[in-house]
């Protein structure tokens, strides 16, 4: 029972992820990608991958390296792998962007960027999966929350596998018939596995634990949580495995995705009921900013799910897929990510600085590192801009969308400034800020405690 120490590079993951977030928002504000060009255009693919890999995957990987050990009360398998993973993912993403720009005719060089990106991204995600997988394997039997993460990691494997197939086909490395068919028709599977499986399902698992922890609510593990896990895992299995089979065997992809969709909606309903229960059963009546903002992100997910049902019912879902994906990506996943970052960065910084001197000298509390009344304005601005941008996509108002994206970038920079202030202990009272034995933490690198 060695406990959990700080992961050295978690802050570097968070820092690079936030850079990617602001970059994506600025690209949208300047009219790069959808809706100025079609959703399947190369520019849109650049934008989508800056968000999905650069922002959300780096954020989630950094968080999982730090918190999977907490989730399963078992030490991380390797403390050295996170850095090579980070380097592989960032360089792979850069090459992937180059590949998309070549594909769209924006870059003239014929350098094989897609195959190189495929190698680096599969290496990076592969090592991340190996590290987290070994950690989880050693900690069996797993709690329900950890099993959500396992399903998320399996989905990441599927997402990367499909992505590598696309990259190899588009890069001209392979001409295998089934792989070409998968590249032609498999995009929905890649999106479902990535957005639904890897990002959303993992976030659900982590949110069960973090929300319970931060609001002093009972840990969930009853039949409803179990049903949410099984229905969600089944939905992903049907969509990914069934979808691949349908494409290769020329079956009905629509039928497969409908079945998966029904299971997925069931999962979202059960998860929603669980989360409402968590908020109601909490012992902490006045909840902190991160939990309040997480509820706005959860509301965005609920609206997205409701919109999917209504649009499917009206038979116009296909037309509005980009708007729904935008709401899931920025309202739900990014909103939840930013809200939890606000708490996590403060907690990890506090532990790094003051952990060694706790009890020996007066120290600030975690909440003394942050000024919530100032941060709440940026969060409110962010969510307002996301919801307005979603509405602009629904009513097809590209200029309004760009303005909203600009406001999102502004709000994100505001939140990042708050995170930097937390990390540098700017808002801690001078008397308590740096007692003897405490060093100011570095921005992107944690000093690791040695036992």
């Amino acid at each position, binding site marked *: 029972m060695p406990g*959990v120490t700080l992961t050295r590079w978690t802050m570097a993951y968070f820092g690079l992820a936030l850079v990617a977030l602001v970059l994506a928002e600025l690209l949208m504000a300047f009219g790069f990608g959808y809706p100025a060009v079609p959703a399947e255009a190369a520019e849109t693919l650049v934008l989508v991958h800056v968000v999905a890999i650069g922002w959300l995957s780096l954020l989630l990987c950094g968080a999982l390296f730090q918190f999977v050990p907490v989730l399963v009360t078992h030490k991380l398998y390797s403390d050295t792998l996170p850095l090579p993973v980070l380097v592989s993912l960032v360089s792979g993403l850069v090459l992937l962007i180059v590949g998309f720009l070549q594909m769209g005719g924006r870059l003239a060089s014929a350098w094989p960027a897609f195959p190189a990106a495929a190698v680096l991204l599969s290496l990076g995600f592969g090592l991340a999966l190996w590290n987290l997988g070994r950690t989880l394997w050693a900690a069996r039997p797993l709690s329900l929350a950890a099993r959500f993460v396992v399903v998320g990691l399996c989905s990441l494997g599927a997402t990367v596998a499909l992505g590598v197939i696309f990259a190899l086909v588009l890069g001209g490395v392979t001409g295998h018939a089934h792989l070409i068919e998968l590249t032609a028709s498999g995009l929905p599977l890649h999106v479902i596995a990535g957005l639904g499986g890897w990002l959303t399902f993992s976030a659900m698992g982590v949110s069960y634990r973090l929300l319970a922890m931060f609001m*002093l609510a009972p840990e969930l593990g009853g039949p409803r949580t179990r049903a949410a896990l099984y229905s969600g895992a089944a939905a992903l299995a049907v969509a990914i495995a069934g979808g691949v089979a349908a494409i290769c065997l020329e079956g009905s992809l629509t039928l497969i995705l409908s079945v998966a969709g029904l299971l997925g909606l069931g999962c979202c309903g059960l998860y929603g009921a669980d989360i409402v229960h968590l908020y109601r059963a909490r012992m902490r009546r006045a909840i902190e900013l991160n939990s309040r903002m997480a509820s706005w992100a959860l509301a965005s997910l609920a609206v997205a799910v409701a919109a999917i049902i209504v649009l499917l019912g009206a038979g116009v879902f296909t037309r509005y897929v980009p708007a729904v994906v935008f709401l899931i990506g920025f309202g739900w996943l990014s909103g939840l990510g930013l809200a939890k970052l606000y708490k996590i960065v403060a907690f990890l910084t506090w532990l790094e600085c003051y952990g*060694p001197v706790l*009890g020996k000298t007066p120290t600030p*509390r975690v909440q003394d590192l942050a000024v919530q009344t100032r941060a709440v304005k940026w969060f409110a601005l962010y969510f307002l801009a996301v919801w307005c941008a979603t509405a602009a996509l629904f009513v097809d108002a590209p200029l309004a969308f760009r303005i909203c994206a600009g406001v999102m970038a502004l709000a994100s920079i505001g939140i990042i400034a708050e995170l930097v202030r937390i990390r540098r202990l700017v808002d801690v009272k001078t008397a308590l800020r740096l007692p003897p034995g405490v060093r100011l933490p570095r921005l992107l690198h944690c000093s690791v*405690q040695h036992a």
Partner: protein
Amino acid sequence: MTTTFVEVDVRPILRAGGEPFEKIMQAVDALGPGEGLRLLATFKPTPLFRVLGSRGFDHQAKEVGGGDWEVLFSPSGAPADKVEPAKPAATDDQPWPEASQHLDNRDLDPPEPMVRILTATETMAPGEVLSALLCREPMFLFPELAKRGHAWRGGFEADGTTYKVLIRIGTAAEAGK
């Protein structure tokens, strides 16, 4: 080997309503190698048999009249029991002393339980034990305890939601390891 006996008569203390245990233990500590203790008491001091037995003394008790008892504690030749500080306290299979401080941290926001536990450990003497109730396994606390040289044992209670951790304060020497 003949045993010389040092006599300790605690009858006056007992008759005055006093507690002779400390005087007896002082006399035992002052014994030289091969020396025994001749104890005179107003009753058969059964509890002492076990205490001194654990320190390597056999006993012979006889009633000497008037309700008084004479007990001869002689070195048994067997090595003295290892409970005493002769052996470093680090091995974990020995029983720990009763907790001298108790904390119920179940209703506190993280990381307040950790702050309270570490604050309490700073006020305690080496060898003392702190008991704390928590609502989850304190994963971030353990490295800090290890760094400070404290030992700990923990586990969930039968209710499955309360985590009880016992922390034994280490010495500075252990912390340096």
